[in-house]
């Protein structure tokens, strides 16, 4: 089935509970009705997807123009639906959200202000990382958003630890922790140890695996030998799901099931989204290694275009409303960039050159 076709109506779902779990599976199987209930959710999700896409397009443009952007630019183009569908089901202040490198849209859905993005990329001292760390590494641990380090897989155990602590402190309640990783990241020992440990502790953890077919330039066949990564869920004793990551409706439905089950205490949930990275690994990369044919597969479908088709088809928004939304978002993005433009860069002379939270521990290595 070609992309951009509407033969896949909302809820005509690729997703499937990996285990035959009657109730939710059947829910998932009732498209239209589900879709109606999901109208409001769809529109909110779509807004975050679009906002993420437009914001990242701006970042990409600035990167190519040169000069303005500090550090590298790694975008989530093509993964917005999968990223947002999980994050939008979480509640800031209650849940934990551990985004990875392709989750600009998910971050926004979890409530991250645009300024956190612009400030990090433009190197403002007022950004959440204060110029110490950059861009996709940004986080606000105290608001439930740990700040990823580069080493893939290492975030899973950190999110698990946040949940374990809450349980020990008796304040876990029905909160959950959700985090993301790519197909390549599943080859790390950290991924395995984190998944296994979360399952042993039966933590309310949701792990979204965005299988975008490549790890940098490496195709999945050089990354793993199983037919589908979801086959690992059972080996960890987790419930697992696969979903067409380009289909917002399907993604929302699968994550609703997974998040609900995690809240219900059924332990870690693993979701594999099938999709394609629609850009390079980073903006420096032309991704010429992606076979054109692959872009024409279902995985290569642009989740935003498709979401728009769904939204129009269901008459949830008309052309002009869609256009208006886009203008609104672009306006917000402009505002954030121009505000950030006038902010100070970090000052090495004002910087506290100590890695310690305990001030007395600074050994004060003289450097000038």
């Amino acid at each position, binding site marked *: 089935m070609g992309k951009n076709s509407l033969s896949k109506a909302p809820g005509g779902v690729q997703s499937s509970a990996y285990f035959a779990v009657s109730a939710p599976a059947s829910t998932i199987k009732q498209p239209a009705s589900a879709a109606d209930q999901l109208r409001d959710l769809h529109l909110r999700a779509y807004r975050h997807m679009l906002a993420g896409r437009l914001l990242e397009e701006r970042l990409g443009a600035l990167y190519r123009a040169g000069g303005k952007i500090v550090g590298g630019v790694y975008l989530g183009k093509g993964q917005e639906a999968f990223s947002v569908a999980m994050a939008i089901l979480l509640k800031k202040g209650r849940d934990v959200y551990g985004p990875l490198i392709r989750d600009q849209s998910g971050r926004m859905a979890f409530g991250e202000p645009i300024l956190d993005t612009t400030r990090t990329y433009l190197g403002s001292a007022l950004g*959440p*990382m*204060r110029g*110490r*760390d950059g861009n996709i*590494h940004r*986080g*606000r*641990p*105290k608001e439930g958003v*740990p*700040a990823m*380090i*580069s*080493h893939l897989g*290492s*975030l*899973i*155990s*950190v*999110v*698990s*630890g*946040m*949940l*374990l*602590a*809450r349980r*020990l*402190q008796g304040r876990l309640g029905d909160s959950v922790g959700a985090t993301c990783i790519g197909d390549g990241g599943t080859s790390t*020992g*950290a991924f395995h*140890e*984190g998944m*296994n*440990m979360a399952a*042993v502790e039966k933590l309310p953890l949701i792990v979204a695996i965005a299988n975008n077919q490549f790890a940098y330039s490496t195709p999945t066949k050089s990354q793993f030998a199983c037919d589908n990564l979801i086959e690992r869920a059972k080996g960890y004793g987790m419930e697992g799901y696969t979903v067409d990551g380009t289909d917002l409706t399907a993604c929302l439905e699968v994550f609703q099931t997974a998040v609900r089950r995690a809240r219900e205490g059924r332990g870690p949930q693993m979701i594999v989204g099938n999709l394609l990275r629609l850009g390079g690994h980073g903006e420096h990369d032309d991704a010429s290694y992606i076979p054109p044919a692959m872009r024409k597969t279902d995985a290569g479908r642009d989740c935003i275009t498709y979401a728009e088709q769904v939204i129009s088809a269901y008459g949830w928004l008309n052309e002009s409303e869609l256009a208006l939304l886009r203008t609104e978002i672009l306006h917000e993005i402009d505002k954030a960039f121009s505000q950030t433009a006038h902010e100070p860069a970090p000052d090495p002379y004002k910087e506290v050159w*100590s*890695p*310690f*939270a*305990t001030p*007395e*521990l600074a*050994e004060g290595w003289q450097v000038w």
Partner: protein
Amino acid sequence: MSLTYLEAIREAQYEALRRDPNVFLYGQDIGKFGGAFKATKNLINEFPGRVIDAPISEDAMVGMAVGAAIEGARPIIEMQFADFSTCGFNQIVNQAATHYWRTNVPCPIVIRLPSGGTAGSGPFHSQSMESIYAHYPGLVIMTPATVEDAYHMLLHAVELDDPVIFCEHKFLYYHLKADSLPDETLPLGKARIARPGVHATVVTYSAMLHECIRAAEELVVEGYQIEVVDLRSVKPLDAETILASVARTGRLLCVGESFPWGGVTAEVIARVCADGWHLLDAPPQRLNSKDTPIPYHPNLWRAHRPTAASIGTELRRLLRF
């Protein structure tokens, strides 16, 4: 009441758990079994739910601890042997050590490393890793040499808002005893004059302290009073106390059990030379284990690590200068 270095570590964990509900223990076999060395014996009964058996996943154990610390918990992680912390290395040096600096959110975790050599333990159950971890910004490295310090420093480690690598020496676990625990202790980062002297200063830490004291005692008959400084923590490093001692003696030997390239002894010498050059009457020397893995056979092991005998030889050479 008399207690061993190991019992002090167990008592300190008991006290930490008692004082602060946010403290919990995580490690392999530390629950009902009480740990490979029994450092957590009975704690699971006294604090049910707060002493948790971990799978054999050092990377995830440390990542788990960092996450818990973000939420205000104060985990104590037991590595079954220091040597296995290499499997959690990335989470320790890149996740835990950088966390406060990156995010402004403290990461108060303690990682207990049963460290150092004992006869017949071989290359992978004998390592001393303080020099490795001290190289990384953001980690506090404690290396207690006495029962008192094992107790008080571990308590201090738990209270600290920064990640602590707690290097406890297996060689001292059972042999080293104290009649009681003082309520008072030195502040973190302060070294201790373990033995006063005038002719030379020996700077050391952990199990080597006792070899150095033995060497110093042997030199008494030769008419030498050797001052022995116990660093207690190698990061932060108390250059002040070292310099004050060198000012008295004019001679410096640094002794450590870890591998000879770089590390604590080189760091101490580099600092003393930079700031105490005028105090030195002789070239500062160091003595470490040999530059090979740690041998399994006791004959080789005893020759691999510094001993009172080899320390004495070094001291005589230094004093002759």
